C-alpha cells in the first residue's frame, strides 16, 4: 500500500504546454524559465551592490578627494552587504541554479508545484522592488549595517530610520515568503520526484549542496522573520522587545526592559546558517565542475555528501561566534569556539577531496575549470582566516576590524562568485545551446581572480593593523601607520579593475547568446542527466515522452575498460563493468 512514485506513473502527468508568449516567458511555470528569471533578477541586484561597493571603496581609498557623506556611506555599506548576501547569492544559487538544475539532475519533468514555483519568483521580485524603493524614499535606505542591530537600527543617528529600515524589514519578510515557496518545492522535488534508479546517493553533488542549503534556509529564515517582525513592531508601535530604557539623542524613550542581545542571537541563528546557504551550493556545483573537467570521478563522494550534511547540521550550533565580543554571557565562548572549529573538519575533507579529484586526473582547463581551481585557492584562504576568528581569543583583537571584512569577502565575496561564474560558463551551453567565448572568458577569469586577491589580501593586514570596519574615515590614529592609506588606495584601484572585468562577462554572455558556436547537447561530455535531454535547450517537460532511468552514480568518468572517458548516468551497466555506482 505504499504510495506510487511519480516515476512509475509518468503517464498520469499532464503538462499543459503554454501557448502564448506571456505564459511561456512571463507567467511561466517552467522551472527553466523561472530559473533564468530568478538568475537575471539576482544578477541585476548584484550589479547594484557592486556599484555601491565601488562608491564605498572610493571613499575609503581617497577620502580627501571623493565626496560622499557618512550618511550615504553607511547606507551603501548596508545595502551592499544585504543585497550581495541575500538578493544576489541566495537568490542566484537557490532560485537560479536550484530551479534550473534540480528537476534536470533528478530526472523530473518540473518542480512538484510549478504554480507555487512561479509565485515564488514574482514574490521575490516584489521583495527586490521594495528594497530598491528604499533608495528613493525620504531619508533613503537604512544605514544600520547588514546586521541591522537594534537599538541603533531604529533610532535617530542612523540613516534611513524613517522609511529605509521599515522597507528593509518588509522586503526581507517578503523575501522569506518567496524563499519558502520556492524552497518547499526544491526540497520536495529532490525527495519525492526523482526518476527511476535515482537514489539519493547517486545524485550529483550540485543537487546535494542546493538541497541541504535549502533545508538550512527553511529552518534558519524563520529566526530572521521573527526578528524582523519584532523589530518592525519596535519601530512602528513602540514595543520594547529589543529596547531597554534608553536615551535617543538625549531624550528618554518610553521603552523599557527589552534585550538588544536577543536580536543578535536570533539574527545569527539565521545568519550563520545563511553563510552556509551561500557556501553549500557553491561546494556542490564546484564539485561537479571539477569532476567533469578533470575527467575523473569526484574523490570520496560519500564523504562529500556526509560532509555537506554535517556542515549543515553544525551550522546551527555555532551562531554565537559572531558574538564573542557582543557582551553576551562570555562563558558561551567556550562552547561556540569549539563547535566552530569542529566545522573545519568536514570542510577540510571537502577541500582535500577537491584537490584529490585533480590528483591523477586528466585536467581540461576549460573555462569552468579555471574558475573551479581558482575557487579552491580563495576558499582555502578564506576558510583559514575563518579559523582565526572562530578561535575565540584570536577574535578579540580581530573582531570588527578589516580582518573580518577580508575573511568574509575571501570566503563569500569571491569564492562563491567564482563558482557562479564557472557554473554559468558550464551550463550556458545547456541553457542556450551556444558555447561561451573562451578568450573573453579567460580574460574575465584572470582579471577577476588576480584582482580580487589584490582586493582582499591587503584587507586582512589592514585589519591586523587595527583598522576597524564600518569606518567612514580613519583620520589620524597613532597606531595605524600612514602607509595603510597606500594599502587602501591599492584595494580601491583593484576593486575598480575587477568591476571593469565584469563588463567583459556581460559582453561575453550577450555576444555568445547571439553569435556563439553551437554547443550540441553535451559539449563537456558530462555524465549527469541534464546533459542527456532530448533537446538543447530542454523543452517544457524536459524529457520528451519517457522519463529517463538512471543506472549509475553521477561520476563515471574514465571508467577502466570503457572506451570513452565518461558514461552518462542513464547508460545501463554493462556486464562485467567495474562501476562503483552500480
Amino acid at each position, binding site marked *: 500500500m505504499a*504510495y506510487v512514485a511519480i516515476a512509475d506513473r509518468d503517464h498520469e502527468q499532464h503538462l499543459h504546454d503554454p501557448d502564448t508568449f506571456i505564459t511561456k516567458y512571463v507567467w511561466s511555470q517552467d522551472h527553466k524559465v523561472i530559473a533564468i528569471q530568478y538568475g537575471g533578477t539576482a544578477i541585476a541586484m548584484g550589479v547594484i551592490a557592486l556599484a555601491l561597493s565601488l562608491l564605498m571603496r572610493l571613499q575609503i581609498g581617497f577620502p580627501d578627494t571623493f565626496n560622499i557623506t557618512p550618511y550615504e556611506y553607511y547606507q551603501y555599506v548596508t545595502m551592499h552587504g544585504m543585497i550581495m548576501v541575500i538578493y544576489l547569492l541566495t537568490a542566484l544559487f537557490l532560485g537560479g541554479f536550484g530551479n534550473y538544475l534540480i528537476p534536470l539532475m533528478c530526472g523530473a519533468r518540473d518542480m512538484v508545484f510549478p504554480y507555487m514555483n512561479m509565485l515564488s519568483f514574482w514574490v521575490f521580485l516584489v521583495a527586490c522592488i521594495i528594497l530598491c524603493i528604499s533608495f528613493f524614499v525620504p531619508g533613503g535606505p537604512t544605514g544600520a549595517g547588514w546586521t541591522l542591530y537594534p537599538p541603533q537600527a531604529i533610532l535617530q543617528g542612523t540613516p534611513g530610520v524613517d522609511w529605509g529600515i521599515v522597507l528593509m524589514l518588509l522586503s526581507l519578510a517578503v523575501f522569506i515568503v518567496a524563499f519558502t515557496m520556492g524552497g518547499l518545492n526544491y526540497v520536495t522535488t529532490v525527495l519525492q520526484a526523482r526518476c527511476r534508479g535515482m537514489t539519493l546517493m547517486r545524485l550529483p553533488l550540485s543537487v546535494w549542496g542546493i538541497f541541504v542549503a535549502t533545508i538550512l534556509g527553511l529552518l534558519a529564515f524563520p529566526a530572521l522573520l521573527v526578528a524582523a517582525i519584532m523589530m518592525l513592531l519596535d519601530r512602528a508601535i513602540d514595543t520594547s522587545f529589543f529596547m531597554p530604557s534608553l536615551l535617543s539623542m538625549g531624550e528618554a524613550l518610553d521603552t523599557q*526592559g527589552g534585550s538588544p542581545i536577543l536580536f543578535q*542571537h536570533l539574527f545569527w541563528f539565521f545568519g550563520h546558517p545563511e553563510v552556509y546557504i551561500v557556501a553549500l551550493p557553491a561546494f556542490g556545483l564546484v564539485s561537479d565542475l571539477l569532476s567533469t573537467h578533470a575527467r575523473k570521478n569526484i574523490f570520496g563522494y560519500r564523504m562529500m555528501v556526509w560532509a555537506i550534511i554535517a556542515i549543515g547540521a553544525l551550522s546551527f550550533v555555532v551562531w554565537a561566534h559572531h558574538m564573542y565580543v557582543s557582551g553576551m554571557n562570555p562563558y558561551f565562548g567556550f562552547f561556540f569556539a569549539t563547535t566552530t572549529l569542529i566545522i573545519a573538519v568536514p570542510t577540510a575533507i571537502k577541500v582535500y577531496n577537491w584537490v584529490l579529484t585533480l590528483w591523477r586526473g586528466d585536467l581540461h582547463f576549460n573555462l569552468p575549470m579555471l574558475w573551479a581551481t581558482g575557487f579552491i585557492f580563495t576558499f582555502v584562504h578564506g576558510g583559514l582566516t575563518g579559523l582565526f576568528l572562530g578561535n575565540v581569543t584570536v577574535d578579540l583583537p580581530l573582531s570588527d576590524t578589516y580582518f573580518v571584512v577580508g575573511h568574509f569577502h575571501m570566503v563569500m565575496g569571491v569564492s562563491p562568485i567564482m563558482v557562479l561564474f564557472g557554473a554559468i560558463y558550464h551550463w550556458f551551453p545547456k541553457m542556450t545551446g551556444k558555447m561561451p567565448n573562451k578568450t573573453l572568458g579567460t580574460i574575465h577569469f584572470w582579471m577577476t581572480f588576480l584582482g580580487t586577491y589584490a582586493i582582499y589580501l591587503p584587507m586582512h593586514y589592514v585589519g591586523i593593523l587595527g583598522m576597524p570596519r564600518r569606518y567612514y574615515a580613519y583620520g589620524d590614529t597613532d597606531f595605524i601607520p600612514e602607509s595603510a592609506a597606500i594599502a587602501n588606495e591599492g584595494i580601491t584601484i583593484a576593486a575598480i579593475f575587477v568591476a571593469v572585468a565584469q563588463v567583459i562577462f556581460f559582453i561575453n554572455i550577450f555576444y555568445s547568446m547571439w553569435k556563439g558556436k553551437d554547443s550540441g547537447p553535451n559539449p563537456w561530455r558530462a555524465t549527469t542527466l541534464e546533459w542527456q535531454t532530448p533537446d538543447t535547450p530542454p523543452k517544457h517537460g524536459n524529457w520528451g515522452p519517457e522519463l529517463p532511468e538512471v543506472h549509475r552514480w553521477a561520476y563515471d568518468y574514465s571508467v577502466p575498460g570503457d572506451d570513452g572517458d565518461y558514461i552518462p548516468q542513464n547508460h545501463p551497466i554493462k556486464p562485467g563493468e567495474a562501476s562503483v555506482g552500480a
Partner: protein
Amino acid sequence: MATEGQQHPLSIYFWIWGLLFLFSAFSYGTDFLPEGLVRWGLILLLMVLKAGFIIAIFMHMAWERVALIWAILGPPVLLLFLIGFMVYEGDYTEATRVDSFTAPPEPVGLEHH
C-alpha cells in the same frame, strides 16, 4: 488506490480526544499549584504528553514510516540549543541589570481584581 491512506478505527480518535481533554484539565489544574519544580515539571510533562498525542495520533505520525518520523522530529533538536542558550542568556542579562541599575518603577495597575 483512491481510498488508500491513513485509515484507522474512529474509536482511537475518541480515545485521544478524551485523553487530551483530561490532560488539558490537569494542566489547567497546575495553575493552582504553588510555584516550584513540581508545578514546572507537571506543566512540561503534560505539555509533552499532549503534543505527543496530537502528533502521534491526530497527525498520524505513529503510522508513518520511520524515515519520515525522524526527518521531521530530528531537526527541532537544534532548537533546544537556541532555547537553552537563551535561557542562560536571559539570566545573565537580568543579573547585570539587578546588579547595576536602579529597579524599574513599580507597575501602576496592580489593584486589578
